[in-house]
């Protein structure tokens, strides 16, 4: 995975879901974790999270933990292609930030 525009921008929600899933988690855990990571700024709605998890599994960016298919609480974790998506997004965000700082004469690193 090379080109940084291979995926396009991720939503905040998806970005934080992927970050959260380096540790396997179930839905409610992800909601709590995203809230924690963003200092309470990003509160994922349950419907939004549910839809995002479905799409991410379909894309192969996250997967259901083996053995949790049938259990009440499904646990997810990030996959290899999920990691690449996240990395390419971080590169993109870096570019945005560094250009912003450069052109606005912003704060030093």
């Amino acid at each position, binding site marked *: 995975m090379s080109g940084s525009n291979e995926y396009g921008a991720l*939503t905040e*929600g998806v970005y934080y879901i992927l970050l959260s899933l380096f540790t396997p988690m179930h839905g*409610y855990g992800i909601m709590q974790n995203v809230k924690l990571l963003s200092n309470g700024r990003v509160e994922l*709605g349950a*419907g939004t999270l549910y*839809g995002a998890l479905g799409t991410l599994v379909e894309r192969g960016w996250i997967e259901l933990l083996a053995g949790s298919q049938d259990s009440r609480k499904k646990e997810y974790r990030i996959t290899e292609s999920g990691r690449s998506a996240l990395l390419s997004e971080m590169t993109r965000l870096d570019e945005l930030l560094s250009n912003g700082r450069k052109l606005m004469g912003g704060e030093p690193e």
Partner: protein
Amino acid sequence: MNHVVRKYFADFEKEEQWLNDMSAKGLALVEYSWARYVFEESAPGEYIYRLELLEEDPKKAKSAEYLQFMEETGAERVPAGKKPSGKSVYVNPRWVIFRRKSAEGAFTIYSDTDSKIKHYQRIYRLWISLAVMELIIGVFNIMLMFVNNPTALNRVNLIMGLLLIVLALFFISISMPIRRKITNLQNDKLVRE
């Protein structure tokens, strides 16, 4: 002590707002059926209510899985009123009312633009398909008037036809604010993700 309130809403967000206002007053919804709400006294603001139109009938696997997911996040579904036979009476079982304790924090179902748009589109399609259905049957009824011989039945066809067309116009009128919300959100997406 249960309180029964009869009230009708065409706008689900106004209905949601009203349920939350009632909750703030210490009246928590415990059961509902068409234009009829049953409240129980509770601590003021104990619950936050949210309405949702599910993609599919709750009996189908996809919805059942979603409802279970909602439960995991601490939301419970407010049950519909029951007939004496014990059968739940839903106007449309795809419309569900959730509540969650406000102590667990803000409760939203759709938190980003895309999923909000999808939800509104679902509702828009429901109102439009109802409008189209009533319109077709209504026009058909009126057309029958010209086909049949002049009998008493004709007047019934005319009245039925006109009523159905009025109903169709009603569904179109409630779909318009939803259409506007979808357009606004889509415009938002041009500047924000």
